[in-house]
Structure formats: C-alpha cells, structure tokens
C-alpha cells in the first residue's frame, strides 16, 4: 500500500501526503530501534531522541564543513550514535527502574543543552543544511519520490532487522532478562553485556533515522533532542504495540497523523493530545498491533 502512495499523491497533486508519510517512515525506524530495547529488552529509555539529534547533527555539521557525501555523513551518523549509546548505556544499564528512566532522560537533556550552547552550529536557532546528502548520483534525495522510496526500503529493512534480532539467540537472551533476571543469572547469563549491545544497536539505528530526518527537514536544531521528542517516540512504540514487528510503524503513523489533524484544527492541539495520551495508557494497553489479525507476534 505504501509503495502506491507516490503515484497517487502525484495524481492528486498533494505532495503534502508524501511528505507526511516519509516523516512517518523515518519515525517508524526510530520507534523500531526503541522497540528493540524497550519492547524486547525492557529498558525504559526516556532519552532515545538523543540519537536522532546526533544523527542529524552528524549530517548538518559535516555539510557545514563541506562534506556532502551521504556515505560519509550517514556512516558518521550511525557510528557516532553507536559510540554515544555505548557511553550512555555503560553508565545507565548498571541501574534499573526509576533510576534508568531518569538517567537516560538526563543524559539526553545534557546533549540538548550542548546543542544549544554551541553557537557555531546555530545554538538554539538551529542551522539550515544547504545541500542534501549526496549518494554519488545513485539516489537523488532532492527528488521527493526517490527519497520516499529510499525511506520505505530502509524502514522495511530496519523493521525486518529488529524482527530477526528479537527472535535470534541474542534476542531470546534479551527477552529472558526482561522476563526474569534472577532466573537468567541462574542458568548462566549475565544480562549486562547483552543489554549494552542491544542499546548500542538501537542507538545506531536511531542515528540513521536522525540522518534521514535532517535530510527530510533540511534543517537541524537541538529540538531534535528535546525530551518531548523522546516521549513521542516512546508513545509510538506503546501505541503501536510493544514488542511487535509492525507496531512501531502503526504507532508512528497514528500519532503523527493525529498530531497533524489536531494541529490543523486548533493551535492548542496539545491540550487535546495530552489527555488522549493519558486515556490511551489507562484504558488501551494492548496497542494497535494487538487489534490486527496476526499482528501480535512473539
């Protein structure tokens, strides 16, 4: 269905939908990466937007210094995100529960303030990216349709990758540690290393989403890393259905569409979204994937 959208949108002369769905797919990647650690690993990271920001800034800063090669930019985005995830994870995975939530949030806030305080890259105003990432003429991101299909392919690849990881030996150890940690230690697993590796994979994948998002907006700002963004990504995972393959896509789609609709209706859309969020947590716990036939996978 998603593959058909570009020709339909072109026929209807509504490029806006193309734009919206592209954003949905980028956030589906971010949500899928969070789903790996939150859904399967039980790590309630409230700082996932950090990697969105790092991926975005990697593209923006390299472009600022004249490096426009997409291979380099996106490679650095993924690599830098993985490194930062390694550092944040190494400290925060030693803790659990409320501590873990607050620490991941605090570290992301630190990066947010770092972004604001570096005047060279625009401070809190952000910075325009003059040229989109250049993939040696292979894919032209300036062409909305080409970018759309690239996002589609990458999103499907990421959803599939998370699915495979979650069901691999590694994934089973990760899920087991979430289900019953003392039992895991009892049969000979120490969850720390597995959790940390998952945390790094998730960071790297979200860094990719960040690189794509910077190209999507042609603009980077510390707002990429704002803590409400982390909350949104987290809500996408829950709304779509925690620990399901398609959940992140469903969650990103519904949340972003609802946001767009509400924002078109009233300036104060967050006053409506907020209570909706509370109600959905209180009364709708299975997630959208649970409603779809065959949508619930293990």
């Amino acid at each position, binding site marked *: 269905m998603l593959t058909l959208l570009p020709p339909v949108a072109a026929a209807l002369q509504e490029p806006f939908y193309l734009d919206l769905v592209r954003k949905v797919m980028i956030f589906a990647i971010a949500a899928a990466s969070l789903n790996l650690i939150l859904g399967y690993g039980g790590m309630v990271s409230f700082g996932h937007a950090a990697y969105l920001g790092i991926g975005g800034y990697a593209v923006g800063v390299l472009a600022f210094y004249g490096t426009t090669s997409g291979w380099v930019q996106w490679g650095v985005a993924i690599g830098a995100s993985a490194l930062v995830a390694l550092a944040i994870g190494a400290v925060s995975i030693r803790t659990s529960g409320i501590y873990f939530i607050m*620490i991941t949030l605090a570290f992301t806030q630190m990066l947010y303030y770092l972004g604001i305080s570096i005047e060279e890259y625009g401070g809190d105003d952000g910075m325009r990216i003059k040229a989109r990432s250049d993939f040696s003429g292979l894919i032209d991101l300036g062409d909305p349709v080409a970018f759309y299909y690239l996002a589609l392919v990458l999103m499907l690849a990421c959803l599939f990758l998370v699915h495979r990881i979650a069901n691999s030996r590694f994934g089973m150890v990760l899920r087991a540690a979430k289900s019953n940690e003392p039992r895991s230690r009892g049969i000979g697993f120490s969850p720390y290393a597995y959790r940390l590796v998952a945390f790094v994979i998730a960071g790297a994948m979200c860094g990719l989403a960040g690189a794509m998002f910077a190209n999507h907006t042609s603009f980077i700002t510390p707002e990429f890393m704002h803590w409400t963004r982390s909350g949104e990504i987290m809500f996408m995972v829950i709304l779509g259905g925690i620990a399901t393959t398609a959940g992140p896509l469903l969650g990103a789609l519904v949340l972003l569409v609802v946001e767009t609709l509400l924002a078109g209706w009233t300036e104060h859309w967050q006053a409506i979204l907020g*209570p909706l969020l509370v109600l959905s947590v*209180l009364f709708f716990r299975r997630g959208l994937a649970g409603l779809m036939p065959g949508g619930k996978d293990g």
Partner: protein
Amino acid sequence: MPLTLVLEQLLNGVQFGVMLFLMAAGLTLVFGIMNLVNLAHGSLYMMGAYLTVAAVQWSGNYLAGVALGLFATLLLGMLVEVVALRTLYDRDHLDQVLATFGLILFFNELVAILWGRTALDLARPDWLQGHIELFAGSRYPLYRAVVIGVGLAVAAALWYVVTRTRLGMLVRAGASNRSMIAALGVNIRLLYTFVFGIGAALAGLAGVMAGPIYAVQPGMGELILIQVFVVIVIGGIGSIRGAFAGALIVGVVDTLGRAFLKPLLGTVLSPAAADAAGPALASMLIYLLMAAVLALRPEGLFPSRGGQ
C-alpha cells in the same frame, strides 16, 4: 577573582539549591512511597507560579495571593492524584511515564490558552526589593536572601515532620511496608492523596519563588524537572536527606560552573576556545557529576531502604 563575587555566586548557588530541594522533596517522597514516576511534578511547579500570579492580581495583596495560590496548587495536586495518578500506582513505570507525559502536554497548553505564551512578570512587592549588606562593601539582593531563608525553614520543618511526628512515621512506614500501614487502620489512599498534595504545594512554592528570578511561562516546569531528577539520582531515591544534599550540590555546582568555568578555562586556553567550550561544559557539568556519582555509588549518596 574578587572574593565578594565568589561569595555572591555561592549564595546564588544555595538559593538555586533550596528551590531544587523544594521540588525534589515532594518528588522523591512520591517516588519512594508510592513508587510512582511523576513527570508532571514540573507542571505543578508551573501551575503554582501561574495560580499565584492570578491570586496576587485578584487579591491585590502579595502575601494573601501567595497563600491563596499555594492552597490552590495543593488542591490541584490532590485533584490530579485522585483523577489520574491513583490508578497508576500498580502499573509499571512505562505507563506512569507516558501518562504523566500526557499531563505535561495538557498543562502546558492549558496555561498557554489561559494566560498566553509570553512570559508573565510576577513582580516582587516593594518590601522585598533592595539589598542586604553581608559585610562592608558586599551587598546581596534581599529577595534571594529571603528565598534561601524560606527554603531552609521549609527544609527544617519537613525534616521535623518526617522524623518526629506520627504523620512522618506513617509516611516512612508507607515507604517500606504498605500492608503494615493498612493494618494500622490508616486510610492509605487518603494518606497518599495528602502526601501528593503537600508535594504539589512545595513544588508550587518553588515556582512562586522562582517567578521574579526566572520567567513565568509555559514549559518552565520541565527545565527544572530534569535538574531535579539529577538531584534525586545523586541524593538517592526516597530520601529527604539525600534530596537536600543533592539539591545543594547541584545548585552550587551548576551556578559556579556557569559563572566561573569560562574565565577559568581562559587561563589555560585561548579566549576563543574558552568562549566556545566554557558554556558548553558548564551546561553539561551537573550531568557529568551525576555520571560520576553513579559510577561510584549506583544507589546515590543517601540510599533509602524504602525506595528501589
């Protein structure tokens, strides 16, 4: 560096610290006793400031307005607890985070609808203007001195209530053993609602006192909330003592870092480099401090047996 400047910044740090403490006290109790992650605590700080602005304008009297505003915040806190948070006690942290995140969006937008998005001015009354003289040649703003005084007084009162009264005994017992409390015939739901309301009023008080120093605007709660998280992580969840120590440490370190890191770096780096690195490092300082504390003491400086 002149000594008076250092002293002044140190006092500013303490002043920021006691405000952080007022926020952290309520939050850490709610964490420790009800095992609830309440992100919306920052919203209560904001609502305290706005309700007081409204009450001062309506009554025309500063002190009466503050009292009225804080009472309204207490009621609001209890209302939020009864309507939304009560059902979250038995849920996992994930649900609590999301639901209270939703509450923040709601309150921020509510404030924008009622009072607009531009910052309001909560003017301090004439009798709080001016300066006091610390010693010859060194003056300190009276208002900030009063903030420190009020903060320390509240901290002392809180310490007394928690460690020396029946209510405090119940609160501490509730942190470690809910069923024991119930067995004593105490209405635990009412106790929770009351504790939550007190926490809200303390957050509101911090918001009121912050008003003349920082801006009263939508979203003001979240900036301080995350710093309060750092305080609680450093101090140890559920511990009032830890919250107090953590708040002062964070307040002083943050304030001194912002004031002196740049000139200090300037002595070893080039001015341009110090200009660039100073503010960046200063804004990261408390988070790096948190990471260091965690590396050495994962449970914080004053772990409480009730929290987890």
